[in-house]
């Protein structure tokens, strides 16, 4: 009997050793010339650039697609815009007619032929079609898009917009899909998306990975890498361990100080902290009692200690928010002057003046997402010192999103990054048209409406300086009304191995993932 047990044990151990003996070759690395990227997600979403708006898919679209124009790789500021599929462009004096001259000889992936103006017209119309696109709203100002000749495209607008180039950047609906492929595949396009970028669709393994291969005909030259293996690794620990063991060369990071410090210790690792920032704002519902009294809102603003938040979130990954528009966005203006200093006694005095000497109690619904919940708990503790009690109900994330859109939470903590032009942030969060519960509602939880005039005027203003001035006034009005209290800005965190040369300086990326260009390569 004892012998049998031992035999079983030996067999089991032997079996393990057999797998082990042959494993070293399985560990991928730079020798394969394939870039291994790890993302925090269980699986891909919809692999169609006009449908998916998730961080998980957006990074991939950035590697596969081009726009008429692009932001310089490694930057996330609309001021670095440069030619992409279009070599040049001009606009009419009224800002309504835009003509783009296309680059010649651009090839669609997998032999779908040369990209011409017909593809651009098709792609932009597709992005504007609510049945085939999640971003149709962005294109509602388009009157028509026409192909003047095979290499010239004309866009006619109904009225001027703050950033037409922003709409035709390689981002969201601006990503250009190839007409023949999209027509041929219809709904199946997401199973084999076809663009013109440096990397093209290779193979998708459900819940495991998306393999992209180098596009040998890329118009800026054949990529130095052979491909990208984009791996879906939902477990934080497994992802970190795989980076440590060398299985991953590029890693989606956590917006967390300890993570950054720990990852910096990993041999041969570089941590990147990049734009665009996601700003945490506390929106105060100014139509609900007692928040309809501006003194109560001011008291809340006074009770906030931003320095403490910085200590809590970590100074490497966050910075203090200074306006209701994040820093680095076109039109951002520093509003530090309008933010009251941290003053608990002052907050109490204001509350007493408003008729609440014993403090107030506010109803708050919040998501259980750990990163966001921690912030709300600190906020709750800070407010409690001033006698403002938050009756906090913690719910699961999808529930949170549904309930805050029904005005069920008096204070809404929202954390978001948007296309970096002040208009998007101001419109979605502070324009009366976006008030939740209305047909056009988006994310205006505060019911703020004080700056509608300036926001609308800035959209059509053609003089850049006057436009910036309008945006500045809008920010001042919103701050003075205390519709929202900006807390801090979280930056995007990624890590790469030192033997990877991205080929540009990484300051930011609209796709929220570091661009992988034709120049990205491993250093031997």
């Amino acid at each position, binding site marked *: 009997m004892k012998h049998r047990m031992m035999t079983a044990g030996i067999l*089991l151990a032997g079996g393990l050793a057999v797998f082990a003996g042959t494993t070293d070759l399985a560990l991928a690395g730079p020798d394969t010339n394939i870039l291994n990227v790890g993302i925090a997600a269980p699986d891909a979403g919809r692999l169609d650039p006009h449908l998916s708006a998730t961080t998980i898919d957006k990074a991939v679209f950035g590697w596969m697609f081009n726009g008429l124009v692009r932001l310089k790789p490694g930057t996330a500021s609309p001021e670095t815009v440069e030619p992409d599929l279009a070599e040049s462009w001009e606009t009419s004096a009224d800002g309504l007619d835009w003509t783009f001259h296309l680059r010649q000889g651009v090839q669609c992936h997998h032999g779908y032929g040369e990209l011409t103006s017909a593809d651009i017209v098709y792609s932009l119309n597709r992005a504007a079609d609510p049945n085939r696109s999640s971003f149709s709203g962005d294109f509602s100002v388009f009157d028509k898009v026409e192909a003047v000749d095979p290499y010239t495209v004309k866009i006619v607008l109904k009225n001027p917009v703050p950033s037409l180039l922003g709409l035709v950047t390689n981002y969201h609906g601006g990503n250009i899909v190839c007409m023949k492929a999209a027509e041929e595949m219809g709904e199946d396009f997401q199973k084999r998306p076809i663009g013109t970028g440096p990397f093209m669709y290779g193979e998708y393994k459900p819940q495991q990975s998306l393999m992209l291969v180098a596009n040998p005909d890329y118009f800026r030259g054949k990529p130095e890498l052979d491909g990208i293996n984009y791996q879906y690794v*939902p477990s934080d620990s497994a992802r970190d361990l795989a980076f440590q063991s060398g299985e991953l060369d590029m890693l989606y990071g956590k917006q967390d100080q300890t993570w950054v410090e720990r990852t910096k210790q990993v041999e041969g690792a570089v941590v990147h902290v990049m734009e665009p920032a996601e700003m945490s704002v506390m929106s105060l519902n100014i139509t609900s009692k007692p928040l309809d009294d501006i003194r109560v809102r001011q008291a809340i603003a006074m009770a906030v200690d931003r320095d403490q938040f910085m200590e809590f979130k970590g100074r490497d990954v966050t910075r203090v928010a200074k306006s209701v528009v994040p820093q680095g966005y076109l039109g951002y203006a520093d509003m530090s002057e309008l933010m009251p200093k941290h003053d608990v006694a002052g907050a109490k005095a204001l509350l007493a003046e408003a008729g609440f000497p014993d403090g107030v109690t506010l109803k708050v619904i919040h998501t259980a997402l750990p990163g966001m919940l921690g912030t709300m708990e600190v906020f709750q503790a800070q407010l409690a010192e001033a006698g403002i009690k938050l009756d906090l109900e913690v719910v699961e994330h999808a529930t949170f999103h549904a309930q805050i859109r029904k005005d069920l939470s008096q204070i809404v903590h929202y954390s978001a990054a948007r296309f970096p032009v002040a208009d998007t942030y101001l419109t979605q969060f502070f324009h009366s048209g976006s008030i939740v519960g209305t047909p056009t509602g988006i994310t205006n939880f505060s019911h703020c409406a004080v700056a509608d005039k300036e926001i609308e005027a800035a959209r059509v203003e053609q003089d850049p300086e006057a436009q910036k001035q309008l945006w500045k006034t809008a920010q001042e009005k919103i701050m003075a009304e205390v519709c929202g209290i900006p807390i801090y800005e979280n930056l995007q965190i990624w890590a790469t191995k030192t033997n990877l040369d991205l080929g540009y300086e990484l300051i930011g990326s609209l796709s929220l993932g570091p661009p992988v260009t034709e120049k990205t390569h491993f250093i031997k």
Partner: protein
Amino acid sequence: MLRFVVRRLIFAIPTLLAVMTMVFVLVRIVPGDPAQTILGDQASAEALQTMRERLGVDRPILEQYVEFMRGALVGDWGESMVTGKPVLTEIARVLPYTIELTVVSLIIGAVIGIPLGAWSALHRNEWIDYATRVGSLLGLSFPAFVSAILMLIVFSIQLRWLPVISGGNRATFGEWARSLALPALNLGLIMAAYITRVTRSSMLGSLGEDYIRTARAKGVPERVVIWRHGMRNALIPVVTVVGLYLGILIGNSVLTEIVFNRPGLGKLIVGALGQRDYTLLQGLMIIYTFVIVIVNLLTDLTYGLIDPRVKYQ
């Protein structure tokens, strides 16, 4: 026996119908909106409404229910609301991974657990018994995701024997075995802990029976006494437990799949829940219920193999 199987399957129909109804209602009671997941948080209320109409979730609940039931019965389980792919395809793509993980873990659990339990019972209150009892208690109380991470640290980081991201490569036997080794061992050890404890107590019971004393008295060799007379009779509770714990194994496999990055039903269900993918959730629940029904049936059938006195009527 065929009649028994058919009858059991017919009895399973009301169970399935009840589960389907419950799942249908439950996923819709929870607040949340699949349209929001699809369109993202910048979508306007109008765009969300258009999407809800396209998905059909704005229609009267009864109408949706009737359509769901009719579809489920004729094998049309609809399309995933979020990815747009057919539910059956989504499930079929990952089901083999979950099945192979469960079966291999079960085998590891039985191969370790049954002999160890028996051995422990034979050496009652000796050090080997104490060690086994403590060891199995540890196995029961250790969370699957913690042991999984410990295994990764030891085998992938320290020893570098196996990759961290094992995925589900199945091109060659070697790759298949490597990708399955750690997850199966992780779940198998938990299973072994359960089986060891049940085998031990059941074996202790049967060793104290009269027929064991009789067998020994008439000079039957000890090996035969233990394995034929003792073990054979002790196995029924073990099989019951294995059948019951198969459900638990599926639950634990969710965490194991996530940490070892294996494809599987567990990951699918967690994703579908977070995204409020009603159709996919419904499909997954039907599959789970079906698996449990089948496992219970197999458990009952195994009794007959172990004990010839069991008759199926």
